């Protein structure tokens, strides 16, 4: 249901048309989750990327833990995990401020899923890693700086 609501925001008219359908029709629909944010993945400015994704770049800090190394020897493979105790998590977004394009990944979570994601990311250079959690329609963020000694984006 939350997924449907997000669609309405993102897709505007299309979403509004879908919203008139009974929820039971929407849930099993494979395309019910938000569309791939193609343009945001190309955005080069962190604040703009946040603005495009969430409508604001001013996101308050929340109870989110980012587990990542203080110093990454190899920027091509930086293990990062995000966990939060906030309930009703709808999505987790990972961004690296100094990467050529800050948006790294966006995870849409089912209400049954925990506020937890672990993956491995590339970092061009030393930068804050930012996690944005959307829970019950509210936004929370956290940041942790990872020092990179060898970049992951060069040849």
């Amino acid at each position, binding site marked *: 249901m939350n997924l449907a609501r997000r669609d309405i925001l993102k897709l505007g008219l299309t979403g509004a048309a879908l919203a008139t359908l009974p929820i039971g029709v929407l849930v099993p629909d494979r395309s019910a*989750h938000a569309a*791939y*944010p193609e343009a945001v*993945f190309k955005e080069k400015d962190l604040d703009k990327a946040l603005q495009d994704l969430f409508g604001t770049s001013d996101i308050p800090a929340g109870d989110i833990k980012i587990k990542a190394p203080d110093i990454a020897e190899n920027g*091509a*493979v*930086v*293990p990062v*995990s995000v966990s939060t105790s906030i309930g009703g998590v709808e999505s987790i977004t990972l961004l*690296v401020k100094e*990467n*050529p*394009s800050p*948006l*790294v*990944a*966006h*995870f*849409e*979570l*089912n209400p*049954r*899923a*925990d506020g*937890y*994601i*672990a*993956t*491995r*990311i*590339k*970092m061009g250079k030393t930068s804050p890693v930012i996690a944005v959690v959307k829970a019950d329609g509210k936004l929370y963020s956290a940041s942790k700086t990872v020092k990179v000694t060898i970049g*992951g*984006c*060069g*040849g």
Partner: protein
Amino acid sequence: MAKNTIKVRAKIKGGKCVVKTLIKHPMETGLRKDKKTGKKIPAHFIKEVVCEHNGEKVCVANWGVAISKNPYLSFRFSGANKGDTIKIAWTDNKGDSDSIEATVS
């Protein structure tokens, strides 16, 4: 269509299902240059990973080029039992895809 690119483990731990998956994929950023020819290597990366439990989506990942080569993804969810089916499917920017089904243990 790519084949045998996904490894997945789904285990019940502390009442929750912990899913860990590894995908074999180059995850080319499109920024790297081929050292011999000096030409840019075109971007080739996974855009979407859909994880389903008994046919219901539990986690949908939208990825950009900054996910490491041979991506790793782990997440947890509740409401799963031993013997349930977990399906992982990915699609990349060239339209290639693969999927796998695993049983929760």
